[in-house]
């Protein structure tokens, strides 16, 4: 395989750029076709939400492996503290799409527009999804507290917090690592690290290119995986969650993602950096993908979303 500046170095490859399953064992028991459907649905959600023109909104296309796999791997009684762009996990956890659309638009069930945190934020306490607070990184210590309560209860549950690497310079991040490590909390930190093919600018705060390495020095178990390789992400998240639930301590999974729609250099991004395209190549190889299959998934999700947003807008107007 030739070197590509868009691929992270030093990560174990399970699903290679051509969609070949290098590590078959890692994919054992994973329904890749079902996973594919959810990834495509997440991409449809992202495109739909992008069209709303929410203030300060950035597309999360390319990062779907994190939200989708977190939602699928978290147990019903585990808690998730997502960032503001990880909303795709909510419908997978069981959030009704009407409720989803309303929350994204900041409309309550009665049509009122209450304070709802940052634009695009959503929460569902009954589904174990916490809201994303406005102060950057504050959800990390909140999640640590939740995990601390789980540890005290000794119930074998874990808490997951998702964030971008930009937050790893904040006091909240460092203090949460200290808390989780000192108190041995069942906390899984999932860090989405952006990939910088020309090297990260100093202000990106990567401080040495790998968040996983940094927290290892703090005594935390960690793994670094490629966000375009959903099988590897699945394996690392699964392992981190199992460790947390078995009281083997906190962990951090660094997922290196390529933001497909965020930059101005979209055209340069090789297709295999897209986790969906990579898994599609795999399914295609296995004879499990057809254009019709694709069309059906997309049409179904789009239809459901249109209905949900139409209902939400009607609530807004009818107020």
């Amino acid at each position, binding site marked *: 395989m030739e070197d590509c500046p868009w691929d992270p170095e030093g990560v174990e490859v399970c699903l290679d750029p051509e969609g070949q399953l290098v590590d078959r064992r890692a994919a054992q028991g994973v329904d890749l076709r079902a996973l594919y459907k959810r990834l495509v649905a997440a991409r449809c959600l992202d495109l739909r939400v992008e069209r709303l023109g929410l203030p300060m909104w950035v597309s999360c296309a390319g990062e779907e492996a994190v939200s989708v796999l977190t939602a699928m791997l978290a147990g019903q009684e585990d808690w998730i503290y997502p960032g503001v762009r990880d909303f795709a996990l909510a419908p997978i956890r069981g959030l009704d799409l009407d409720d989803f659309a309303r929350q994204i638009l900041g409309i309550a069930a009665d049509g009122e527009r209450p*304070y709802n945190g940052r634009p695009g934020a959503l929460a569902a306490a009954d589904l174990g999804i916490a809201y994303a607070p406005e*102060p950057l990184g*504050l959800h990390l210590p909140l999640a*640590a507290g939740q*995990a601390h309560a789980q540890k005290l209860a000794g119930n074998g549950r874990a808490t997951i917090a998702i964030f971008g690497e930009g937050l790893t310079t904040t006091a909240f991040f460092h*203090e949460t690592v200290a*808390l989780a490590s000192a108190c041995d909390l069942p906390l899984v930190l999932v860090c989405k690290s952006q990939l910088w093919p020309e090297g990260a600018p100093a202000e990106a705060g990567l401080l040495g290119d790998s968040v996983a390495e940094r927290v290892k020095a703090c005594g935390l178990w960690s793994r670094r995986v490629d966000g375009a390789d959903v099988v590897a992400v699945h394996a690392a998240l699964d392992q981190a969650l199992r460790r947390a639930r078995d009281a083997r301590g906190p962990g951090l999974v660094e997922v290196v993602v390529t933001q497909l729609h965020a930059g101005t250099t979209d055209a340069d991004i090789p297709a295999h950096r897209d986790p969906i395209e990579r898994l599609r190549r795999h399914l295609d190889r296995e004879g499990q993908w057809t254009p019709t299959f694709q069309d059906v998934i997309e049409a179904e999700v789009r239809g459901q979303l249109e209905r949900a947003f139409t209902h939400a807008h009607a609530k807004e107007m009818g107020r």
Partner: protein
Amino acid sequence: MSTLERLSTIVAELLRDDVRRVLVGEDVRQGGMLGLSRVAMRDPSLSSRVLATPLTPAASLAHATGLALAGRRPIVALASATALLEGYAALRELGRISATSAGERSAPVLIVAPTGPGFGLGGDGAASPDGVIAGVSGLRVAILGDAREAGAMLRAAANFEAGEDPTVLLLPRALLLREVEDGEIVETLGRPLCAARCVRDGAAATVFAWGAAVDVACAAAEQSGHDAAVYELGGLAPLDVEELVAAAAKTGKLVIAHAGGLSFGPGAELAALFADRAILHLDAPIVRVAGREGPLARADEMSGLPSVAALVDAIHQVVTY
């Protein structure tokens, strides 16, 4: 028994009464900065709920919030009220938890923190950030004004009788060191947390005070030779508006006394309240008497409280206006 020892006994009692409660702080496993966890740590059935955390000024309050959201009742023991300023972002978030969940989730966190001068620390250890803390919406902020009530107030705050709003209980350092005879102890507060009360009756003027300024106000009322009333606020958020306005209307001559600097202090909020609600009853301009603006040198930290002399002058000024 000193006030701090008594509080330590009550903390242990609180942990015993409700298994959801946990005591959180940096050094609580070693007794805590104020010794608040000393008694609990001697009881093996309680010590597992005494949670020591690393020094995490920004994260500690959010960590406690997470514990509360998960059904725990954290009591956070801070070394100083100014630690709340180091964790201000998390304090603000704690105040708005209820709003972000449309009232569905609450975070009954109790934060106990010493405030103002009294330990000879100066600087942050003598600062009175009461107003800054009370300005955070969604918090209940109570402040001890009578050393004899320290235990009763801690119990009332920990019981969240008036609702599950996150609560800050400020303990003026000057009161914590005061010796109180066993016979003088007030066991139950006998009024809601943050309710105002009349400490000294009088018809010529009314002094409003809270925290360590209450005793100063009483001494000044006594020395002034005027028939001045003294009201203790009991808390800054929420203000006991009706009681305070009624007290203001009664004499129409008002003095406000508090620790910490004058500018943008809670005294301004009170003066605005009286101007708004009792202007037709006022017979003199409202006079505020506060401590010196910080930072305060160690040797000079008691100047962070209003002086008796300045308060005597203020009472005389409004009575003879």
